């Protein structure tokens, strides 16, 4: 039997060791996706826990048409998008939209999300993209999925992946330029 299908059946039947096996195979990816999309380690840990419990509940719906990893990516992305939507509804100021450049906390600390300046800068920029753009960028740049895999994960045509990625990158470049110009602007002279 196909190993993906076999693992899904074991998850569905609650077989001992099946969840651990799924975690060993996919845990890092799930956590990393959550971290980069949600932007906070505590949220990413909570989301990863929820997602692995969801895998057990939904394993029966895995039909084997896509790879198990694609199916898990889909569940992860949808869970994170739902979390962002809940957060947006709860407090629209918590996650700034990319159009809201003036109000964005561009220099707020990002704990544990990046070690170097380049990583931290990109993480900040990511969090200022819209959820739709953020997801497509994370799947491509961080998870290194092909356009076809991204299309399967998001259930959109590959052509849409290409154009959405291009828009997201344009946005990223624009935000980076705005941030750089702000940081290089000379401080106002003291009276």
């Amino acid at each position, binding site marked *: 039997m196909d190993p993906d299908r076999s693992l899904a059946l074991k998850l569905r039947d609650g077989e001992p060791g099946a969840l651990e096996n799924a975690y060993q195979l996919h845990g890092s990816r799930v956590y990393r996706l959550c971290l980069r999309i949600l932007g906070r380690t505590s949220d990413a840990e909570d989301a990863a826990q929820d997602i692995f419990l969801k895998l057990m509940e939904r394993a029966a719906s895995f039909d084997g048409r896509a790879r198990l990893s694609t199916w898990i990516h889909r569940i992860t992305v949808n869970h994170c998008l739902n979390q962002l939507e809940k957060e947006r509804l709860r407090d629209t100021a918590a996650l700034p939209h990319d159009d809201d450049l003036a109000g964005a906390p561009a220099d707020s600390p990002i704990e544990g999300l990046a070690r170097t300046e*380049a990583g931290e800068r990109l993480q900040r920029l990511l969090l200022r993209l819209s959820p739709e753009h953020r997801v497509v960028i994370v799947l491509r740049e961080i998870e290194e999925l092909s356009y076809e895999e991204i299309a399967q994960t998001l259930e959109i045509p590959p052509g849409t992946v290409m154009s959405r990625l291009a828009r997201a*990158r344009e946005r990223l470049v624009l935000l*980076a330029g705005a941030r750089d110009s702000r940081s290089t602007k000379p401080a106002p002279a003291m009276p």
Partner: protein
Amino acid sequence: MNPLDELECRETRAALSARLDGELTNGRDLSIHLVHCGSCRDFEVSLSSFSAGWVELRGSAPPATLWSRIQARSDARTVRRPPKLAWRLAAGLVGFAGVGGAGWWLDRNVSPPDSRAHWAESLTPITRTPETSALFASLPEYQLLVGFPRKENER
């Protein structure tokens, strides 16, 4: 920038983005546009400037305690909610035992062994004559209730 230039820039950037990912399939020559368009050249340079940052962001590992927390929540769920199949089997067994037990009790305590015949005969106390009895006995419904009359030599 006029709308046609903007459209061309947009298409060029989409192609540059796909080329960066190794997904450009139509083999479009972007160099002609890039020679004339500083904005698209800047876009390409900016994209490549991000690459070191992406590499770093790929390296995040989950905390060591994450699996134990997932396991604890999974165990708590399993204890609280047994598998559906086990529930169904248990409910089936209880139902089967209940119906069987009730039938056995009724059979032992309420219905005498020949109650069907008594009940059938009690339906016809007024009209009961040798003729009507013979007529009733010949009806299939009556035979179903009291059983088919046995011949004398079988008794």
